[in-house]
């Protein structure tokens, strides 16, 4: 870390005027430039990845927790690694932090190979799931710990600790001990401590898992704000798909030590590449079928009795057994049979309905006996379509809402 600029240098903890971190997320209302040039370095073939993970494996007693994983992450990204428990996501994070040594493969951060580097020599810092705030230190000493180990001067440490505590809004608690803090406050301390050394990469292990619902949402936005302000690359490990979708620029879905799909939240939600991903991300209706030999846009489906209109990707090899996935909110309910080119129409009866205020969820049993979930926004106070139990109804969706899954 250079001290060249001294006090005259731009304080990195304060929002800078320059378009240093242009994000694709539309929360940068004070920065119109961000919307004009979206932050999508992964689509730029010339962009140099900031973190390169190559064929990384970690085996514990013959069990491959991480199994030959490769991934490029770009500077300023908020990357989420998502998966169920035991999928290897935490091991991957620990490999990046240096707490585990890989069985094979390598990690390169900002051009430097991390092989053989212990955690205390890596440009990464971690926010632990348990927060791991040192119980015998005050809040200020916790934040200062990494700076003391770096050998910074007393006044500089003091300045930086003050800045960081302001950043996480904990300046009034500097002299408290961790046991006097709530879980949310401890988490802020952990975050400030992890940011103190200005790491190139911040690793966050289930950052919101231990917080209650309200605090979670608030913290989520704060994390995004802080990440945006500091421009540090964040890698978040989580098991919560909602958390991953709202936080991340890109998501890697992990299962059994491998990545199943890597993409932006929209890509993963709208174009899942497998049943596993489709199922993991929210509710989805799956129909089993096979492609019509004459017309690849028609999926013959025994379960529904009617063919489903779809748009298989060009060149997508269609095996005998495939699945069509449709999100509940893509399906329209109507009393009259809708007509139109490429619209799949089914008929059924409302078996169950649940009112959630902003939207309602219906479970419709088709005439062939298949249960389909439909959700619709309650845009008006009295829904024009006040459905009742056991009411006969038409389901329909256009062909571009059908996702064809081959695995």
């Amino acid at each position, binding site marked *: 870390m250079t001290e060249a600029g001294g006090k005259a240098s731009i304080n990195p903890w304060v929002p800078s005027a320059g378009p240093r971190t242009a994000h694709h997320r539309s929360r940068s209302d004070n920065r119109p430039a961000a919307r004009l040039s979206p932050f999508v370095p992964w689509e730029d073939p010339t962009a140099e990845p900031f973190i390169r993970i190559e064929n990384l494996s970690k085996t514990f007693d013959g069990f491959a927790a991480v199994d030959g994983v490769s991934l490029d992450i770009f500077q300023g990204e908020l990357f989420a690694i998502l998966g169920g428990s035991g999928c290897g996501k935490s091991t991957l994070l620990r490999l990046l932090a240096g*707490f585990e040594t890989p069985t094979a493969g390598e990690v390169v951060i900002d051009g430097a190979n991390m092989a053989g580097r212990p955690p*205390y020599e890596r440009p990464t810092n*971690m926010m632990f799931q348990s927060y791991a705030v*040192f119980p015998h230190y005050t809040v200020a000493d916790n934040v200062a*710990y990494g700076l003391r*180990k770096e050998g910074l001067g007393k006044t500089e440490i003091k300045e930086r600790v003050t800045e960081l505590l302001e950043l996480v809004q904990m300046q009034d608690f500097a002299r408290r001990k961790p046991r006097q803090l709530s879980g949310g406050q401890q988490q802020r301390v952990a975050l400030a401590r*992890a940011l*103190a050394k200005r790491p190139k990469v911040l690793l966050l292990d289930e950052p919101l898992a231990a917080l209650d619902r309200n605090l979670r949402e608030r913290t989520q936005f704060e994390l995004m704000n802080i990440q945006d302000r500091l421009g540090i690359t964040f890698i978040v490990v989580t098991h919560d798909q909602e958390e991953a979708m709202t936080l991340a620029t890109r998501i890697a879905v992990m299962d059994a030590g491998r990545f199943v799909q890597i993409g932006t939240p929209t890509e993963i939600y709208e174009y899942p590449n497998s049943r596993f991903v489709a199922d993991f991300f929210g509710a989805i209706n799956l129909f089993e079928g096979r492609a019509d030999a004459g017309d690849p846009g028609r999926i013959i489906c025994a379960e529904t009795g009617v063919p489903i209109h779809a748009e298989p990707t060009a060149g997508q090899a269609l095996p005998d057994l495939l699945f069509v996935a449709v999100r509940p909110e893509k399906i329209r309910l109507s009393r009259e049979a809708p007509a139109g080119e490429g619209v799949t129409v089914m008929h059924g009866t409302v078996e169950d309905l649940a009112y959630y205020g902003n939207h309602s969820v219906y479970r419709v049993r088709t005439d062939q006996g298949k249960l389909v979930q439909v959700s619709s926004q309650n845009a008006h106070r009295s829904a024009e379509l006040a459905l009742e139990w056991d009411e006969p109804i038409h389901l329909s969706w256009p062909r571009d809402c059908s996702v064809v899954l081959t695995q």
Partner: protein
Amino acid sequence: MRRGGRSPTFLFSCLCFGFAFLYVPILVMIAYSFNDSRLVSVWTGFSLRWYGALWENEQIIDAAGLSLRIAFVSATLATALGTLAALAITRMGRFRGRTLFSGMLAAPLVMPEVITGLSLLMLFVSLEGMVGWPSGRGADTITIAHITFSMAYVAVVVQARLTAMDRALEEAAMDLGCRPMGVTFDIILPLIAPAMLSGWLLAFTLSLDDLVIASFVSGPESSTLPMVIYSKVRLGITPDVNALAAVIVAIVGIGVAVAGWLMARMARAGRLD
């Protein structure tokens, strides 16, 4: 709350009886230490003469000094070694012979004292024959013997604390640029200090209390306090033993109070300024 027909009065008298069984003998003994009579069981009047006699009794004062010295040294060394052993078991991964090591470490807890004492005596005798050390038996051999068995107690106490400690704390320190040795001093030692203090107190008490092992490995010149009391009682109880017991009870009481205060302060250190 009434349950199963047991009344609060019944429960309270049970409690009183239990406490009486435990503490009345000690109270009676303390009371009789102020007895003027030479006979232990006949009360003739209040006097402090046995405390004076105790102060004059060089044999007892010397033995008490020796016992305290041995207890202090052995407790300190046992705490150091026991803590190292606990660290090795909980923090050094699955090294070869770990199970054997932890088993052997705990063995003195269940070993009959007579066997420990006898085997140590044989070890010291044969060592003296082979390398000339320890020459004769005395305070040193008692100290070594006490370290060997009280170390196990310290290790168990410290190991429990280390196992309960969040490993992420140590990882966080390393993540923030601390080397493994620094982690030990910055994080581990401050957090296991209360356990080390309890271990030290336990070792100190065990050493002060020990009669059997000390009898085996002591020499003619070095009699610990329990040995002196035991031999005096065999010749018939004199009231100055009562006075000695009262003094020990007082010292132990103060010691426990101080230790409790210290530990409360350490616990608070994790909470308050």
